[in-house]
């Protein structure tokens, strides 16, 4: 029994399919090499997006074009 290689180095389309770079995949989406369960290097689904705040900026579906933070002495 042999252990099949996981595509821990992600996607690659730069070589002929039969000479695919080691540890790369020719067909992969929404996966990351560090899993979300325990942050181990082993391939898994990417983390999902969550709202930081429940407020929709300006109350409409307009894109947020800039974000920064400002620090002041308190």
């Amino acid at each position, binding site marked *: 029994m042999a252990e099949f290689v996981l595509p821990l180095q992600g996607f690659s389309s730069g070589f002929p399919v039969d000479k695919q770079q080691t540890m790369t995949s020719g067909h992969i989406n929404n996966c990351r090499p560090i899993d979300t369960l325990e942050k181990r290097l082993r391939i898994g689904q990417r983390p999902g997006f969550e709202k*930081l705040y429940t407020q929709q900026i300006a109350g409409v579906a307009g894109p947020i074009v800039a974000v920064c933070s400002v620090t002041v002495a308190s």
Partner: protein
Amino acid sequence: MGVNTYESQLTRTNGEGLTSSNIWDGQTFTPTLGYAVYQIQLSLSKVGSPPSTTVDIYATNASHEPTGSTMGTATILASAISTSPTYSFVVASFSAGVVLTAGVEYCYIVKCTGATGANSLLVGYNASAGYSAGNKIVTVNAGASWTQRTAWDGTFKIQGYPSSAPPASDSYTTKRLVCCASDEVWLETAGGGTMEQVAASMGLLDTSDFLSMFELYGKAFIVNRSIKKILDLVNTKITTTDAGANPPDFGTVLTGVTSTAKMIVDYTTALVDNAAATIYGKRTTTTTFSSGETVTGTDDDGNAISFVTSAAETAPPHFYDWTVWGGSSVYGALADNLTLGCAYRGRAVVSGDPLHPHQWYMSRVFNPWNFIYGANNPLSAVAGNNTNAGEVGDIITALIPYGDDFLVFGGSHSISILDGDPCQGGSIDQIDDTAGIYGPSAWCKDNSGNLYFFGSGGLYRMDGGRSKPQNISYGSLPELVDEWAAAPATHRIILTYDPLRHGILITRTTLASGANLNYWYDLKAVGFYPETYPNACGIFSSHNYNSNAAATRKTIFGCSDGYLRYSLDTAKDDDSGLTDTAINSYCTLPLIKMNEADDSEGRLISLTFELAGGAASGTFGDTDGLTYEIHVGDDAETVLEDIKDGATAFSSGTLSGTGRKNRIRVKARGRWLGIKLYNSTAAQTWAINTVNGTIAPAGKIKG
């Protein structure tokens, strides 16, 4: 270590008799140092056999009376007290230190509950005072009312040790998130937890046009072509209808004659005598400027400043135009149209004027209101055409500061670096004339200071931010540029370094719809991972928010639907507004040649999957299930295309639960083997440890 005496008054002239439960005696005191009280010694005497005595420490109110709950209680047994007429100091010990703050008034209160005239307590005091930071207080109705004996003081020693209380805070800073969308600015509330509109900004931006925002000196500076604004989170605002003949200068200290409030002037809107002005400054006192009071100061030339406020001060935040000092041309001029901005060496740096696309401008150091170019001063404002460093010979597309060391100018087809300060021998050198940087946000830095940007050939890296750019995507993603077909009029490209996951998110979002194509570039595994998100999550901006609150210390994305989002490991779906969207995740293992001999096939006999999570449940994370597909074929490319096209698999199945799964017997014959793993079910995620298989030779390829 001996106990320290922090407050004391040792003289005794008289004694206060506590002859009932309602008569209490006390003393106010104000520590000059912060410390923890462990004991109070009182000069006491007794008549008969009084009950035990208690000593409490309280905070005081504005009337110098005890308020709130006791901060600590100590008990004195009657047996420890001398019989009248003898007085002696008796110790009242607090089992836990009562922590006091310097400069804050407290009091101790002595009670002898159950005392009578025959069995009472005498509390010594000095009728000639002797302690300057408080006085004796008494009540005859168990605290319903108090009498201040301002000329008398108790006879006492307050003793303890330096406070061992932990610091109240490890930082004196407050951070707040700012974002721009739908022509207005929103600001995180001071305590976090919500975003709120900056009402004064409503409709004053044009977020359909170029816009750049950067932090400098407690403010967010916004350049939005002809619109130039500031969100000021640090200054207090005062107004006057007549700024007077001598308006304040930058840095002038103003004082309210009535209130005694003081501020260090940061900005004023006008410098004209008999004309209104709004003045912003950092108030340095707790007292505040009031309406109608005279404010005075002295300007840089020694002239007396005097004006009358037209309203009480207004606390930040404030939203106002970014102009030169007082709006006066004496202090230079901001360029008419600006689309790029950053902070560098204490200067506000701006660029991106379509009429002067090669030009850059820097304010005076520590003064973003001063744009007097060409002054012979190392701190003065400077522009590309007023210094030996010169303009950049390319249209500037991005400004990338590296601390105080150097500033990278991204160009449409080149990269240049400004070393040092242009007013102190700094020079600009072009280091590349091939790649260019796609747009204002098509770059990021990793935690080692390496610069990544999207350019004409894909993704590039500049080690340390200043080496020659190296294309790092071409080897794995040779079709990236063609596939993305990115056009600034149609797409926005954002690069974001995620320090928690140590990788870079490269996103191309369609401006009109939020449709997106993305790659995660993992810096640990060194590989590219394609990702797709719901259009609502299309990324238009990002920021690594080093918040003081762990809940918001995230890499934050400004999304196409007006929500701020972040990546959450426990989120198994993508939040897409009112609903969640399942993540369609799949992964094809590197294709496996089942027989190394030419024209020969192999046979997959069995497969064993080990899913992540170990034992089910418990405290460690568990994977959900996943589906596998097995494809075989005579050549690798056909197998891969079958998988991509969704061709019927030779075999498939679903795995559930964690850990090692039972061996799957397959008997799939072919020259090449492809295994696809996937899950597109809502509220599920997956991870896998290993895939093992047994392959045996199967003879020549038929046909």
